[in-house]
């Protein structure tokens, strides 16, 4: 069954119709999604505690209280941090433990995704998708909260693809590289990442900005799940099963199961 999962437009799979329950997300994708979700949330919240220890961001090789920060992050309140009261050492233990799960999880996801062809099939952009007219249409659809139906709902739309590619291949790897560069022990192994990033204070700034981008992604992602139908969307990421939203053009009357889902 996993081989038949429709994570995108697999030509080998027959055309499912609206109302049908299809296998959409394969086990590796689902496993990574949830372990990564936990790791990312723990790292974001413990990261905010770490930020509270010195809420000033600098650019360049160095930066401390006597230097000029380009940005002073706010003091993050207890409900947003792990732990909820000030404790830098414990926040670091949380952060650096989950860093292993996060980094090796992403590596495993990328390797499996290349082997099972999830990445080349579902997370690559075609020239047609990138055509301005197509992009504009997708932007308009998103603005009107017009969610794809029928077969269209089974593949990632172009804005979704660009977002996922940006998160998985740019922002998350950059978080790892900048995070590693903050380690003086790692810098002794290789300091070319720091040279590339413009110094440790710059790396720390980029780390913070990327964390902000991920927080923004989570808000957008959860909002869209809630708008698109949380039951169906969350089920598809737990069991893999996804009910195809009916295509308004389809002549076939919606099934009873579908009617229940839409309630």
């Amino acid at each position, binding site marked *: 069954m996993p081989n038949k999962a429709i994570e995108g437009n697999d030509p080998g799979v027959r055309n499912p119709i609206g109302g049908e329950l299809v296998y959409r997300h394969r086990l590796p994708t689902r496993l990574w999604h949830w372990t990564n979700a936990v790791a990312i949330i723990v790292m974001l919240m413990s990261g905010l505690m770490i930020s509270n220890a010195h809420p000033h961001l600098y650019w360049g090789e160095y930066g401390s209280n006597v*230097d000029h920060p380009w940005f002073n992050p706010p003091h993050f309140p207890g409900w947003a941090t792990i732990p909820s009261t000030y404790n830098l*050492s414990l926040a670091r233990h949380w952060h*650096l433990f989950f860093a292993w799960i996060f980094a090796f999880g992403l590596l495993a996801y990328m390797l499996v995704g290349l082997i099972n062809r999830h990445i080349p099939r579902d997370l690559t952009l075609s020239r047609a998708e990138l055509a301005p007219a197509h992009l504009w249409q997708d932007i308009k659809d998103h603005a009107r909260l017009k969610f794809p139906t029928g077969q269209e709902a089974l593949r990632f739309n172009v804005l979704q693809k660009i977002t996922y590619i940006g998160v998985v291949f740019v922002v998350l790897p950059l978080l790892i590289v900048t995070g590693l560069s903050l380690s*003086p022990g790692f810098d002794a192994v290789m300091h070319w990442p720091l040279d590339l990033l413009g110094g440790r204070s710059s790396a720390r700034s980029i780390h913070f900005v990327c964390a902000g981008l991920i927080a923004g992604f989570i808000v957008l992602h959860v909002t869209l799940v*809630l708008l698109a139908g949380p039951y169906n969307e969350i089920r598809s990421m737990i069991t893999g099963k996804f009910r195809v939203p009916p295509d308004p053009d389809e002549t076939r009357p919606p099934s009873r199961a579908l009617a229940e889902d839409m309630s």
Partner: protein
Amino acid sequence: MSNLITRRGLVTGLAIGAGGLLSGCDKLGQNTQFRELLKTGEHGNYALQRLLQDRTALAEEFAPSQRSPVFRANGTRMPGGDDYARHLATGFADWNLVIDGAVARPQSFSLSQIKTMPARQQITRHDCVEGWSAIAKWTGVPLKLLLDRASVSRQARYVVLHCADPQSNGTMYYESIDLVDAYHPQTMLAWAINDELLPVQNGAPLRLRVERQLGYKQAKYVQRIEAVPSLAGIYGGGGGYWEDAAGYEWYAGV
């Protein structure tokens, strides 16, 4: 089944779940076993960095122009107590550095002896655990030269640095490093910063520089270096003041 899950219900559930998650995280953080689990991250980082690092892999060194205009002082800025005040008043004329513990020939060096030994200069970046960093030039004697004079015994695994600054809980500051870092070419007891004798706030008259680790390992006001086979008998057993007092990592390479 699906009509049991409404959008409103789901949002409420997520909010309650998030609240529960947060207090759950605090409870987990207070659990000794869970903290031990989290600390496997530190052990993993120590093992991985020792595996990837060449023993003598150097921390990056910088050009004089890349130094911080002001090197921030942190931690103790003026050690309390009469002893240190007396040393300060006499310009550290009878400050001694003792090397003992698991060594064949315990040593006692005067400050002037140390300053006549071969010195190393390096411009390196100091990274505080809080997130700030500062670059300065350090001059001092490589720790290896001092340890070789004392001939560290084969049982020794760590060196403990005993300092002259009393902390709020009454103990004097202490730190420890393994022998890989102790014999590292950049590890030194520095007596000058930016070509001037160390000011009190930066650790006068002697401070440790162990460049591949964070700031709290860079013990200031060093008086005694003790070679030990294990850290278990040293104060709380964590290997350092901040390790014992607040649970910071002993391996501060990350």
